[in-house]
Structure formats: C-alpha cells, structure tokens
C-alpha cells in the first residue's frame, strides 16, 4: 500500500505506477531471450525458436489468395476503391451491418450450424483483449470476482483485472483426470469463495482451453451452465479457439448447450475473435456476443474505445460471407493444424516426452515432470531456464498459467514453418540424448549455473522473421524503435 504522500504528489495515476500490467514477472525472461536472439533459418540458425506465441500462421496463404482473387473487398484496389469514401467516414459503433451479418454467419458455420447468431447482438472490440475487458466492465464492479479454472491464459490477470479492479479466483484442474474441469471443483471453489465473503459474479471458461488444447464436453458444459443458473452467476465463455479443433470430439459451444438446458440467457456471454481461428491478430477483431440486452447496449457504447477499423470490417465482411471459401478454409485450416500437431507430438514421443491428448488450439501441453529434480515450482523454473538457454526454445512454463502441478509446459506449434519445427525437434532430441548419455550424472544440467545472462548483442531487425514479431505477451519495447533513437 502506497503512503498517502506518494499519491498526493504523484503526477502519475496508481494504474500507471503499479505492476498491474504484469510485465515485471520473471516469466517474461523467455520473451526477452527470444527478442535478443531470435531464430532465423539462414541468418541465425542458433537463435531461440519462438514456441511461446499462440499465433496461427499455417493458413495465411489461403487468406492471401482470397484477397488476390477478390479485389473488390479491399479499398486499396482499382476494383474496390469506389467504396473508399463510404467506408472511411463510417464510424457508427454498431459496425457495418454487412460485417455483423458476416461475423454472425461465420460463428454459426464454425459451430456446424448447431447454433445461430443474431447480428444485432454482435458488439465489436479491440481484439479479444478489448472484448474480454469490456465485458468484465459491464458485468462486474471493483472487488467483484470471477471463478476461472486453471491452468488459464496468463494475460487474463492483466486484461480482466488491471483497469477493472475485478478479482480472479482460480480453481485448479490437474493431471489426475487429464485436467478436465469438473462440476465438483467449481462447486467447491464457489463455496470457499462465498465463505470468504467474496462477491462472486460469474465464471470464465475458455473453450477450447488455452493452454491445454482440449474442448469441454457437452455434459460438462451442461452441468456448469446449470450450476451458474442455479447460483445466478454469469457464464462467460471465451471461444476464440473454436475453429482450431482438428480432431474429435467436435466443438460444443455454450450457444448450443443453452438450447437444451434450462438457463437464464441474461447470464450467458461469449467472447470471440478472428485472431486465432483465422490467423488475423493484426486486424484487431474482437467480438462480444451477449444474450443480455442491457449488456449488449452497454458494451456497444463502450466499444467506442476499441472499434474495428471500417477498412478491416469492409474486407472481412466480404471474406466471411464467401461461404465456399470459408468452408474450404475451415476444413483446410483444421487439417493443417492436425497434421502439425501430430508431427510435434510424434517427435516428442520419440524422445520419451508425453503430451496431454489434445484436439484443438495452437499448442500442446507437454509433460516434463520426469525431468524435474523435484516436483516443485522452483524446479520447474530451473528446467525452463535450461530449455531457454541450452535448448534455445521459448516454451511457456505451466506456472505462468497458474498450473498447480509443476512440470508442464505449453508449446506452440502453429507459428512456424515445417523446417523450424524439425529444427526444434532436433534440438530436443539432442538435449534428451545428452541427458541420457551422462548415465548416473543423468541430469547433469541441473548442477550447472542456470542464471540467464543476456549478451549485449542488439536485435537486428533483419533477423526477425516478419512472422515472428510481437505478441500480446511480450513486454519488450519494440527494439527497432529503441534503435531509431540511438
């Protein structure tokens, strides 16, 4: 707690002064290591490979081809420039009607027609980041809390809490049942929170899960929805990975479950985005879909703080309405994700490394418990530092996702090409075999100096693959900008 004198004389707000942005966390060491020494196949083959960025780059050629073949969708082409004036001046926070219709249709298509969406409930926001923050502003006041199953996406701590002042109460899922969320766990967490006099406003589920890469089953969703209905809690479902499912079981959306279970629609809300499913994080397309009219109304007004560029709305309205293309894209995208997932899982398995049986997402949940000195968070951090320093892979330690069980790591696989995947697998192979060769001194690396020290080598922009630039996790100031000043 700051002394009153600090606040009295401070030129900056508390938000600007406090660490609510989370970037002082040691977990960003991995990002820093990558930013200082990024892998490049020819120019820096010994650099750190980025496996901590959940970006879908596997299907962007399909998008690129579509744009080439549909010049009217872009206002930057002779065919499309006629729309420029109308698009440029359009700032209505309802969004372009054709954009809302296209998004609604696309969301329905991703759910294989099992649910339909009303374009008038589509509210825009600045990426999923903006969408989730805005929704929380609408649903909860300072000090209110949401239950969240862990492991969960680390940036929720920042996005959902920093400016809103809302609390997150994690309840742990663990390997004993393959990290499945159960009703019993949620009930227990809720009871504990109520006992501690915490005002629980709702529950946040990420489905498919980040970092686990698995769906929630229909039965589980149904029971959780019933529970929230019974306790009068909001049910917020982050479904931004809904089209990244590449294997059964098929994705079940809360929108589908609502139709078959007694619930209060005013309590159900979906967060969506095109950043993962379509691989377009740069477009900043975040969507709030709420079944509560007041929330829609309020969120829509707040969307002024993060409207989607009308230029992007216009382009995406065309693209998402092209049903033939979307059908092909969704199928091919799933296929490529599945293929990549299999390759990485297989490669790891050959080295005796298992992963949680995943069927969705842009990552896998790798089990390295057998490599830990002891089953503690410190041992996990130690292992992680070795992976970054010696194996030169930036993977994300489970503790950054609030995973209660040490030894798990999230490995992203969709943000690189095939060659880079093979390099990464090769490095793991070498690391594991080095460990095996040393017999009794099996985990000799554990005794080495594991402090990370960074060279003063500057990050040359030409070494950065244009596909591996920034992520919502990286706190490092854009190095080219720093360079421009010196």
């Amino acid at each position, binding site marked *: 707690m700051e002394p009153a004198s600090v606040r009295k004389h401070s030129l900056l707000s508390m938000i600007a002064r406090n660490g609510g942005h989370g970037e002082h966390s040691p977990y960003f060491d991995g990002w820093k290591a990558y930013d200082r020494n990024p892998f490049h196949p020819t120019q820096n083959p010994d650099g750190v490979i980025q496996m901590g960025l959940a970006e879908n780059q596997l299907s*962007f050629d399909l998008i690129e081809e579509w744009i080439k073949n549909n010049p009217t969708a872009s206002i*930057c082409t002779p065919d499309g420039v006629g729309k420029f004036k109308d698009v440029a001046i359009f700032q209505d926070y309802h969004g372009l009607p054709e954009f809302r219709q296209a998004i609604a249709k696309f969301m329905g298509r991703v759910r294989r027609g099992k649910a339909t969406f009303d374009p008038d409930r589509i509210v825009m926001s600045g990426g999923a980041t903006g969408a989730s923050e805005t929704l929380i*502003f609408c649903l909860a006041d300072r000090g209110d809390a949401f239950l969240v199953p862990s492991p969960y996406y680390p940036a929720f701590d920042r996005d959902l809490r920093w*400016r809103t002042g809302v609390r997150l109460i994690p309840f742990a899922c663990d390997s004993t049942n393959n990290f499945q969320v159960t009703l019993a766990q949620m009930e227990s967490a809720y009871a504990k929170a109520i006992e501690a006099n915490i005002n629980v406003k709702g529950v946040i589920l990420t489905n498919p899960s980040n970092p686990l890469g698995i769906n929630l089953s229909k039965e589980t969703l149904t029971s959780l929805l019933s529970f929230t209905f019974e306790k*009068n809690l909001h049910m917020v479902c982050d479904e931004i990975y809904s089209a990244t499912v590449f294997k059964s079981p098929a994705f079940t959306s809360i929108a589908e479950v609502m139709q078959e279970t007694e619930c209060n629609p005013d309590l159900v809300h979906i967060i969506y985005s095109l950043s993962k499913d379509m691989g377009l994080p740069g477009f900043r397309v975040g969507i709030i879909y709420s079944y509560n009219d007041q929330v829609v109304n309020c969120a829509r007004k707040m969307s002024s703080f993060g409207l989607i*560029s009308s230029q992007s709305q216009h382009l995406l309205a065309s693209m998402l309405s092209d049903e033939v293309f979307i059908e092909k894209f969704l199928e091919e995208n799933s296929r490529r994700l599945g293929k990549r997932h299999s390759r990485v899982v297989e490669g790891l398995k050959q080295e005796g490394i298992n992963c949680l049986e995943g069927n969705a997402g842009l990552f896998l949940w790798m089990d390295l418990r057998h490599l830990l000195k002891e089953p503690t968070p410190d041992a996990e951090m130690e292992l992680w530092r070795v992976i970054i320093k010696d194996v030169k892979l930036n993977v994300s330690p489970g503790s950054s996702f609030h995973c209660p069980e040490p030894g798990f790591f999230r490995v992203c696989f969709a943000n690189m090409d095939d060659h880079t995947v093979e390099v990464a697998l090769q490095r793991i192979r070498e690391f594991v075999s080095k460990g095996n060769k040393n017999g009794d001194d099996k985990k000799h690396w554990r005794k080495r100096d594991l402090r990370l020290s960074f060279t003063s080598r500057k990050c040359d922009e030409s070494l950065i693959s244009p596909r591996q630039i920034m992520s919502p996790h990286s706190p490092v100031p854009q190095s080219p900008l720093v360079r421009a000043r010196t």
Partner: protein
Amino acid sequence: MRLVVPLRGIVGGRGGLILGTFVPCALFCYLHIRRLRFLATRRVSERAEPIAKAEESPYYVGLGRVSQDPFDEVANPNGIIQLGLSENRLCLDLIEEWLSENLTGAMIGHGGDKRHLGIGGITGYQPHDGVTELKEAMAGFMSQVMGGEISFDPSRIVLTAGATPAIEILCYCLADPGDAFLVPTPYYPGFDRDMTWRTGVELIPVHCHSADNFILSIAALQQAFNQARKRGQRVQGILISNPSNPVGNLLPQKTLHDILDFARNKNIHIISDEIFAGSIHGNEEFFSLAKILDAENFDKSRAHILYGLSKDLSLAGFRVGVIYSYNDDVLAAAKKLTRFSSVSAPTQRLLISLLSDTSFIGRYLETNRKRIRKMYDIFVSGLKEIGVKYVDSSGGLYCWVDMSGLMHSHSVKEELELWDKLLNVAKVNATPGSACHSIEPGWFRCCFTTLSEGNIRIAIERIRKVAEMHKSSR
C-alpha cells in the same frame, strides 16, 4: 424495505396474527426476494448501469434522430439536415484519387519487399502502440499539419484506435478515480463520456464567456482550482482543445504561456487536444503546444498532445488516434494500455504509404483548408442574411452560432425548446450549447463540412423559418 403490506394486515385488524400479519409478511418477503433475484440477473454492473441507460444529452439524441430520418436531396428531401456531427466530407475525393493512383494491390504484395507490403506483414501481431514506420510517418504528418515549423519525435507517439481511447488512456495514466481535470467550457460533449465513464475521473468546467471571445481566463482557472482544493478534490490537469471545439477559436500564444505557468505552479498536467489542427481555415496564427514548448524554456514533463486522423484526414472510420507525450513514464504506461485499443494492421499499412507521400499531403492540407473556408463563408453569409449572429472563428469544421435572438428568454429551458423546434419542426440538427456546458444559453454548434453548398442554403432557409416563426409569435 416497504412495510406497507405487512402493516396493513395488522392495522386492518383482519385475520388476526397469522392471516393478518404472518401470511402477508411471508408473501411480501417471497416476492421481494424474487424481485431482487430478478434485478440481480438482469442488471449489469453498477458502474455500467448509467452507461446502459438511454442517452439523454441532446448531442446524442440529435445524432440518433438524424440516423433515423437523414436528409437526402433526392431520396428524403424532408429528412433532418445534419449540422451536429463534426465530420469533414469535403476532401475524401482527393484521397480516393490518391488511392487509385498509388495503392494498386498494396494489400497483396505489389512491388518492393513482398513480405513488407504483402499480407504476410500485416496479419500477425503488431506492437500494440503502432508499428515504427507509422509512428515515423505520423510524426512527419503532424509536423506538416502544424506548418512544418515543429518536428515531432516518433518515439513519443503512441497510436490508438481513435482519439476516443487516446483520451481515456491518458486519463488512466494521469489520474485516479475521484481526481479531476479542469476543462474550459464550452467543450466537446463526448469528453463527459470518454474521460469519466470507466476511469472514475471527474471534469470540472471552467466557464468562458462571449465577452472574452470564449478564451480561457487564468483567474477563472485559479478559482476553479481553489474551489476543488477546498472540497478536498485532487486536480490532476487541465484539458484544452485547440482549435477549440465547439467554438472554433485558436488559443493566443500568451494564453498558452499563462496556462503552462499555471500548470507548473500547481504541478498539474496540461493536455492539448489538437485534433482540428489541420482544419484551420482562417488567417490567425496557430500555436500548437508543441510549438510553444519547442520555442520556450517550459518544463515539458507535464505536457501531452492528443491528435487523430478523424477530422483533418476525414478517416473517422479507420480509428487512428495519437497520444504525444513529453513524459517518459506516461508514455511507458500508455503504451501498455494500448493493448485494448490498437490500430488495425491493414490500416496501419495503408497510412504509412499515404502519410509518407509528403507532397500529396501538402497539397491535401492546403486544399482542405480552402474548401472548409469556402463552406464557412457560405454558411456565415447565410446566417448574416437571416440576422443570426456567430463567433468569427478560424478553425474547426463548425460555427458557434448565437441563436438567442430566436428565444424568448435567456434560459437553458428556452434553448432546449429551440433545439427541439429546430430538430423536429425545422428538421435541422444542431448541438445546443448546454450539451457543451456553455454557461450562456442560446449558443449552438453548427457543422457545415458534411453538406454540399446547396444543402447549406437549405439548412439556412430552414433556420430562417424558425426565426420568422419566433418573430411572429412575440
């Protein structure tokens, strides 16, 4: 808790203790709890409730009415003419022409480094506060807008999805809930929402008067500051808009010096919203805060400039705002907050090309100023013809018009009645001064840059009819 129901049973003396008291009590409690549960499920958070409520400010009501019944010369000649939205449609043709000539296939890797111009460079995550090349292009553009006399440092630029999040982010960085900003009146109605809705910050109006040509007086600033202090409220800064919205005047150099001195003495921030800097159509010299700070030896650590492309470049839909801060800590904090409000990547890519074409931008800015002036001249000469006064201004896309002559008395009530008459009878949407916190009733902001010359004349004619109605009703 209402005691009427249970008490009735007792007072009425009917049914005895059980039927007269207990049963009604139980029924009442059951219904009350059900109602609470109903309310709890339906309502949004407490802080969101006022936002969810229907917008009452005439500024928003008027905009809403126009969208339901918009004037169109051909399709809807009896619709409402929009004078309430400060948008500029006069020079979009120039940008359209530039696009046709310059950006064929820019989205898909035409020319140069394919990765750079092609879609591969724009689909992925970008720095939240904007890519370096756009910051550099924006710095150059802002410099051109301000007459080429000041240079802006790209590393002091934070790009946001429009000026709306820019000002909110700045408030989040500079003030805590309950803190206040001093804002000279009349001011842009949107500030009330953008700066206070979620931040918990308050705005303290500092009234300016027609006698001073609506220029801020330091004495008024001092008084407002002292009163806030007496209330125990922490004032964190002053927000000025220059060129001013809704009046359209430019702050004199001396006034800016005085404001800077005041801010330094009180150790508070100064935010200068200069979003109309490229829309200066008169001959008066414009002093950007940047110009003053460049030239004089003022402490810069509390100075911040807001900018955006919605007005000067008419690109309101593209959502591009700028925070320009001289304070490194504020910059660092603001950059982190842009994660919620970043500029869309394809738009960044397009703008890098557009803003870097400095010779086109030079021609554009000059033509834009001329065209705004032309419309201004037509509008004010129309006002003169019908005997309506206005403030002679040099900047902005609007005119600050004195319609008190069309009112029976100088009151906000009369002003709102006149607004209603203009909107619903004359079918003209102008923004009443009370929505802008003007202390003098009767002033209206009329924007004229969304209309053709012919439509301006139609608008004037409609206002004339109201003036005549008023004369004959006296």
